[in-house]
């Protein structure tokens, strides 16, 4: 993924069509799986396909205007675009909001990840612990823990989305984590 920001920077400077096509393809090969996982974890599959296309098109259109300089900034920027498209869709059709991914589905994805990167016994222990933290949380807390730790949104992004202030979100997430830990232990 370190090459991602190099590709984005080169894309911003490129003017030839062939070069832009090559760079765009390379960039989206790296980020599409993450974005797809994100969109499909928020919206029902029949609608998620269209929303994903909208997300990819929006990112492509704005790629030349991205001003950050790190991979993290670029991914945060992509997720911000994705989140806006998702909420635009949910505002129009609330019934398309997906319920949290069930435990078995998460476990299946974890098992599949082992094919890409071998897992130690400690890794498996950590992942089972993480799943039990999510399983033991109340729906609101599960959403906070999921969005902050699993998806990777920072406090300010969650605050903006929830219309709360930064410290409020930080404390809520801390309390949710405390509660989940006490329930699991």
């Amino acid at each position, binding site marked *: 993924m370190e090459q991602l920001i190099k590709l984005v920077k080169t894309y911003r400077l490129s003017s030839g069509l062939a070069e832009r096509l090559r760079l765009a393809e390379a960039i989206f090969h790296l980020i599409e799986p*993450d974005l797809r996982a994100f969109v499909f974890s928020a919206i029902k599959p029949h609608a998620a396909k269209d929303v994903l296309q909208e997300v990819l098109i929006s990112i492509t259109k704005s790629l030349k205007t991205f001003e950050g300089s790190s991979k993290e900034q670029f991914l945060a920027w992509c997720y911000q675009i994705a989140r806006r498209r998702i909420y635009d869709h949910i505002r129009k059709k609330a019934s398309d909001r997906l319920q949290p991914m069930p435990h078995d589905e998460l476990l299946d*994805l974890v098992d599949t990840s082992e094919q890409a990167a071998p897992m130690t016994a400690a890794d498996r222990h950590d992942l089972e*612990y*993480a799943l039990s933290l999510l399983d033991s949380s109340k729906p609101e807390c599960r959403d906070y823990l999921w969005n902050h730790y699993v998806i990777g949104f920072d406090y300010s992004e969650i605050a903006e989305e929830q219309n709360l202030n930064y410290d409020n979100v930080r404390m809520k997430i801390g309390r949710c984590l405390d509660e989940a830990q006490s329930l699991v232990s």
Partner: protein
Amino acid sequence: MLGRSPIPRFLTMPNKHTDAEAALKKLGDHLRLGWAKKHPVSDKSIESVKNTVREQWEQEQITERPSKPAPAPAKDKSRKPVEPDREG
């Protein structure tokens, strides 16, 4: 200060959240890996991206192409030339 560490106590105490936070972040990494493995990048996605790049590039060519010069206004030489539109 004998017997007291100059380092504030809260800085030396282990973060009780650390293990849980690390485990949840690790879960995120593995879910993304699993998702990428299960659902390779679709041709449709890449085609959408390429079509958008093409459209945008063509639009830029139209915008950048110098337009046919209008007949020079012979009488009003004091007018300043209009600047081309800038991209947002």
